């Protein structure tokens, strides 16, 4: 059974891992967000793709939720001492990956090809695809001005309320090679419990991807990132309250109107109407057993 997962960073990577632990990893294709990508000291960094890759390879720093386990920071310390801007933290092992990717991109290799190579090099059997090879960047408008995604999220600690999200380059962006093919061959399309605006929004901003979901012939399901009306991590709840008018299943479903057939919600949110077919289960992916239960609930119901 082929499953295509649209995923952002941490929530997306955890659900991706849950899928690969339950299904044959080869049957899982993860389409990752690239709206968070940025240049750091001349290096191309793809934070969401990297979090998914590190998670599937089993080398993610689980505590931090980003970067690699057993990381060292010598390069960053040195750069800081020498006056470089180092607010976006890159560890030594992590930097190795960014060097390899940036070098390949400079040679003209598309991001999807580089990602495929890196995925293989880490021994990951699932397929990881960027939503697009084209330049697509998330910008966040706040009461104090507009910021690039990482400037707002990391540097300002996502403290400013978000009035609007904009995806620069989305109009021209084409789906990366393999994305539409995977969606066409899927038995189930899933949207990970990621931030609907910041993680999934940039993927759906690629017109070809959105159109493929709109014209799907197989079930599509989204997993709500909320538990009891709060996001497990990050600003999804605040953004839903401000941009969608509430923090319940209905507001999450409204972000995916016409794109999903069912919404998976945590049992803590079961007392609110989603306005769509709802699957109630436990959604917190705290350990292997919990991840498996969630995936089995979703697959058992839908496939």
């Amino acid at each position: 059974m082929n499953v295509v997962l649209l995923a952002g960073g941490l929530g997306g990577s955890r659900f991706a891992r849950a899928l690969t632990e339950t299904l044959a990893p080869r049957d899982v294709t993860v389409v990752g967000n690239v709206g968070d990508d940025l240049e750091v000291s001349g290096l191309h960094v793809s934070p969401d793709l990297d979090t998914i890759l590190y998670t599937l390879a089993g080398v993610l720093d689980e505590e931090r939720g980003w970067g690699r386990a057993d990381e060292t920071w010598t390069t960053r310390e040195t750069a800081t001492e020498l006056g470089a801007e180092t607010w976006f933290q890159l560890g030594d092992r992590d930097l190795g990956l960014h060097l390899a990717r940036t070098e390949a991109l400079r040679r003209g290799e598309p991001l999807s090809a580089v990602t495929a190579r890196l995925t293989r090099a880490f021994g990951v059997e699932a397929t990881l695809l960027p939503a697009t090879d084209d330049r697509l960047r998330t910008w966040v408008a706040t009461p104090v001005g507009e910021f690039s995604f990482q400037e707002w999220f990391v540097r300002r600690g996502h403290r400013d309320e978000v009035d609007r999200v904009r995806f620069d380059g989305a109009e021209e962006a084409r789906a990366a090679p393999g994305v539409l093919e995977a969606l066409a061959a899927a038995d189930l399309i899933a949207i990970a419990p990621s931030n609907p605006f910041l993680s999934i929004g940039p993927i759906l901003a690629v017109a070809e991807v959105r159109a493929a979901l709109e014209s799907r012939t197989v079930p599509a399901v989204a997993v709500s990132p909320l538990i009891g009306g709060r996001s497990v991590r990050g600003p999804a709840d605040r953004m839903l309250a401000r941009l969608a008018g509430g923090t319940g299943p209905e507001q999450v479903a409204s972000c995916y109107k016409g794109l999903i057939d069912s919404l998976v919600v945590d049992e803590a949110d079961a007392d609110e109407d989603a306005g769509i077919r709802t699957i109630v289960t436990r959604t917190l992916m705290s350990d292997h057993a919990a991840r498996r239960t969630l995936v089995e609930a979703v697959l058992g119901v839908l496939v």
Partner: protein
Amino acid sequence: MPTVIVPFRREHAKLRLRPLSEEARSALAAAMLADVLAAADAVGRATILALEANQGEAVERALRRIDSGPILVVNADLPCAEPRDLLALLGARPEGGMALVEARDGTTNALALAAPHLFAPLYGAGSAQRFRARAERLGAPVVTAAIPNLVDDVDTLDDLERLEGRLGPHTLAELGAVLVR
């Protein structure tokens, strides 16, 4: 639009239908659910409770969001259920009361409720009688509706073979695949 609540205990479903392999039992449980959902989607909006514990409490919680309008609670092991069976159950519900479908063993396969408060977590042996007794205590009229496709729940492979002519398409296809294996 009626709300249709479908409790689905996958672990529980997997315990049934021995001596089939665990994989086959899982696949059949999912196929039966798919047939129930196809009927549910045709008459209302479905909520599937995919929880292993406290199913009755989960139903109560899911009912909290419903202000008005009829509610169906339909078990997931009723692979013969068709939209007209669910409509018949809704139609059997007396004004302000409830209609229930009793299984042959005295448990409850399906409920149609006028209001959420008529539900209580009473599942298990003899539950049909307990649902009736509770409704009477509340002064709500109760009808026991013997709708054949909702009376026929599936506990064994024999049940499935006996019901073959009436099974929904998902279950029928999966049963075929299982018997070939």
